[in-house]
């Protein structure tokens, strides 16, 4: 039995407990303890990433399994619910991203979290446990446990340290995501009862043979939960509110990792576990993704608030992920997976930068700025790099992902690929316009003249992310090679489901095409 993953998952929780018992005023201690915890977790995460080879079991590595409890099943014997953690190609990048992003987030709180520091650090660390658990859980019930628990920390983070309308935003966020989750809960109850197992990989082998109607119902329930989290049009309205009101660090985690729980779920459950339904529903999901790209971009274009602009751009960027995943082609899925990481890094950086300028200027309105590049040249440098990464400049990370997504989508549906492509243009428009309005032009506002440039801490915390931006852009294969074996398993399932769908058509009475073909032969 290996304990790496247990350690990785629960170390933040232990850190949170330890911090909870520190004296009230010891803010420095609490900050450093949180930073130390997340650094250790990051080191563990990177070690796991490096140790994860290109070959090996695709049904989860570093497995940890403990019997937990059991629930009724229709097979007489009860369904064993296990505490099962494991890493595979689908979760690897997400786990690493979560581990690496967290110390950066904690370091960023030096600038903007000044009240109730202890509680803040506790919730941040609890959230990390929730997110890591969600990605690592290979038991359906355990997954649901972590999935729902990870709502609570963000609820507090937004609710206590958020902006003006924080209470509205946090309740909206909670209720929206919970509504979707609970429908998924009913689906999980059904699966456990009828299939008698809660093991994700066993279910992946079992459920692909389920009748199509059942698959579609289950797909609908899962897709609702994940679609709200992603967020997929038309369930996206909670996101701009949550992002705008959240403290910088909350936004970074939300954009960087939390939303990816939704796309991760789409890959793991909707596509891999229910391939038949995925093939069937792909046109709808692609349409939602593509329209999301366009709509999110237009929304972002119309914003005057920087943070809201980036939040809306998130809707657009996650549209690419969904478009790519549901193209159900190897290129599309690879691109979607890569784009999940890219978005986490680029949007995380953007939120960090917005936070930094907000701490100085106490405004996020685009009109309040102008000529900031003169006052803050280093800030401008980072902003431009991040913007270019976000709009997909070749050589930076965004390009590879977007390119693969669009290639994959074009193979599946040229129409939605073209709609998505137009989003690339709009994306460049709103990001570059925002950049122009903020950084360039005349430095005519007295407040902006007094802005101080980034300090060493701020530069230091962004450097690792910028390095990743370049690394992912230049050498994406370092990352994709590791995910490849797992994604090939997904592709195999899809191919099987496609064949089954065709065979189903052949078997149906109204199949004149195939008969004609045969007679022609």
């Amino acid at each position, binding site marked *: 039995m290996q304990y790496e993953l247990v350690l990785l998952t629960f170390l933040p929780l232990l850190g949170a407990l330890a911090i909870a018992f520190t004296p009230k005023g010891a803010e420095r201690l609490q900050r450093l303890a949180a930073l130390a915890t997340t650094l250790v977790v990051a080191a563990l995460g990177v070690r796991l990433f490096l140790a994860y080879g290109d070959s090996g079991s695709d049904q989860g590595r570093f497995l940890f399994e403990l019997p937990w409890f059991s629930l009724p099943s229709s097979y007489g014997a009860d369904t064993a619910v296990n505490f099962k953690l494991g890493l595979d190609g689908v979760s690897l990048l997400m786990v690493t991203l979560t581990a690496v992003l967290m110390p950066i987030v904690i370091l960023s709180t030096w600038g903007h979290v000044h009240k109730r520091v202890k509680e803040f650090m506790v919730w941040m660390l609890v959230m990390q446990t929730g997110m890591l658990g969600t990605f690592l859980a290979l038991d359906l019930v355990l997954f649901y446990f972590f999935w729902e628990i990870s709502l609570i920390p963000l609820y507090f983070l937004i609710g206590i340290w958020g902006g003006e309308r924080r*209470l509205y935003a946090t309740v909206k966020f909670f209720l929206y995501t919970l509504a979707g989750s609970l429908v998924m809960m009913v689906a999980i*109850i059904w699966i456990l009862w009828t299939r008698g197992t809660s093991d994700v990989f066993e279910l992946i082998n079992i459920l692909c043979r389920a009748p199509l109607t059942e698959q579609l119902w289950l797909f609908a329930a899962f897709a609702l939960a994940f679609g709200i989290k992603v967020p997929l049009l038309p369930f996206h309205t909670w996101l701009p509110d949550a992002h705008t009101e959240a403290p910088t660090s909350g936004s970074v985690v939300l954009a960087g990792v939390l939303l990816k729980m939704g796309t991760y779920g789409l890959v793991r459950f909707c596509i891999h576990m229910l391939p038949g339904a995925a093939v069937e529903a792909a046109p709808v999901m692609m349409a939602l993704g593509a329209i999301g790209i366009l709509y999110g971009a237009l929304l972002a274009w119309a914003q005057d608030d920087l943070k809201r602009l980036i939040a809306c751009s998130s809707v657009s960027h996650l549209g690419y992920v969904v478009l790519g995943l549901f193209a159900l082609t190897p290129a599309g899925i690879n691109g979607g997976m890569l784009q999940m990481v890219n978005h986490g890094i680029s949007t995380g950086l953007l939120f960090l930068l917005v936070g930094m300028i907000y701490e100085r200027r106490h405004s996020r309105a685009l009109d309040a700025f102008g000529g900031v590049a003169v006052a803050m040249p280093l800030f401008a440098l980072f902003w431009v790099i991040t913007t270019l990464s976000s709009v997909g400049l070749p050589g930076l990370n965004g390009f590879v992902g977007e390119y693969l997504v669009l290639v994959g989508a074009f193979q599946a549906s040229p129409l939605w690929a073209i709609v998505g492509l137009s989003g690339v243009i709009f994306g460049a428009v709103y990001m570059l316009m925002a950049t122009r309005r903020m950084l360039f032009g005349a430095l005519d506002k007295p407040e902006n003249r007094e802005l101080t440039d980034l300090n060493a801490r701020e530069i230091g915390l962004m450097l690792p992310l910028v390095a990743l931006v370049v690394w992912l852009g230049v050498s994406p294969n370092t990352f994709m090679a590791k995910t490849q074996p797992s994604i090939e398993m997904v592709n195999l399932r899809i191919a099987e489901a496609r064949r089954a769908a065709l065979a189903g058509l052949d078997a149906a009475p109204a199949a004149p095409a195939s008969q004609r073909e045969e007679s022609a032969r």
Partner: protein
Amino acid sequence: MNASVLKTLFSDAAYAALAPLFALGIGALAVLVAGLFPLGKVARAVLVLLTLLAAAALNVGMLLGDSVPGLVLDGTFVADRTTAMWGVIFTIGVGLAWLFSRHYYDEDASHQNEHDVLMLASALGMSLMAGARDLIVFFIGLELLSIPLYALAAFRRNRAKSVEAGLKYFLLGAFAAGFFLYGSALIYAVSGTLKLDVFADPASRAKILESPMALVGVAMLTGSLFFKISVFPFHLWVPDVYEGSPTPVTGLMATGTKAAAFAFLLNALLALPSSTSTSLAIIALITMALGNLGALVQQDVKRMLAYSGIAHAGVVLLGIAGAVAGDPKQGGAVQAALFYMAAYVATAGGAFGVLALLERDGERMTTLEGLKGLGQRRPYLAAALTVFMLSLAGIPATGGFLGKWMVFSVAVRAEMIPAAVVGVLLSVVALGYYLRVIIAMWMQEPGEDSPLASTRAIALPATLASAACVALVLVMGLAPRWFLDHM
């Protein structure tokens, strides 16, 4: 009655079956008598504690033992693992209410003794209800529970609201009791027996239910049980009575009474033909909707929890509807209801207890306004109340989550999936008000009306009780194996 009949009636098995009840009854009488002597507070408290512990121990013994007495007293009372588990739940519920009541009546503690006797008597009533297989035995249990509760509800007799609560509860409770008796009489007239066994055989059940008189009887019984579990359309008394009663008593009403009535309802399910499942499910959903919508607009947390209790009763009723429709898992509904109510007793019991503690510190502490900023002033109490709110809302890692999971599982197994989906969506509404309590405690600064930080230390019994509740809620949520295996 000759000697041999008496011998079979009062066999060893009967004594074993009734041992927990004897413990409670003897204990209650002992406490009553002890009140005559100048024994001092501590000695009497020890007596109450010993009684509850003895009852709990006897029940746990039955739960873990190799054999159970089964049906005794000529088939009118059953003692099996299920009733033993109910017994444990009741003693926990009463024990919690008792611990929280320790310092609640500080300004007028002159009748603490009678208060304790009434609480023990109500525990006896609950245990009798859970094991009853006969309408009259159940009725005795019901009255043994209800009459102490009428008195307890009005226990703060110098406060108009408390007296009003007691009177309201008494009047409506008396009607419900009347309905129950009349319904029993009608069923007796048709079937010639008061034992529930006659319904066990589908043929004889069908024959009895052919008669409109028996149908009216069953409807009246159902109505009076619905009154006790506070289900639509018999739920209107709940908010006023819960609000007016002394808070520890409210906790007892919300948890113990409801659990006992559900225990019997699960036994009496046999009498309901499967065709009623749809109407039961609809009633359950209406109850959930009314409870949740009612709770949304409350400013007083006690009232809010009263409405939330209505909604929770609706959830369990949905599970019961599933069982009536035909749960393919034998005993699944009983297990689900037991787990749900056990979690609810710990959760709601704890929540009312914490409210009782806060109330002691000032008049209006139980409003949302009064809870503002509690997280800063009293972090431990606020943390406990947060855990209870999350458990009531059914968030994972709490007992409430698994309870909800299991009850909805019954509905899913019975293929009532649309009802299950509507049910879970209604529980999203519930989150709206549970979150408001958390918001008030952690996310809002104390308002002008909020009482200042109290310097009063929390008494030991209440601290223990709150800690026990939190522990129980978390253990049931994180390591539920023991509970699931024994339910």
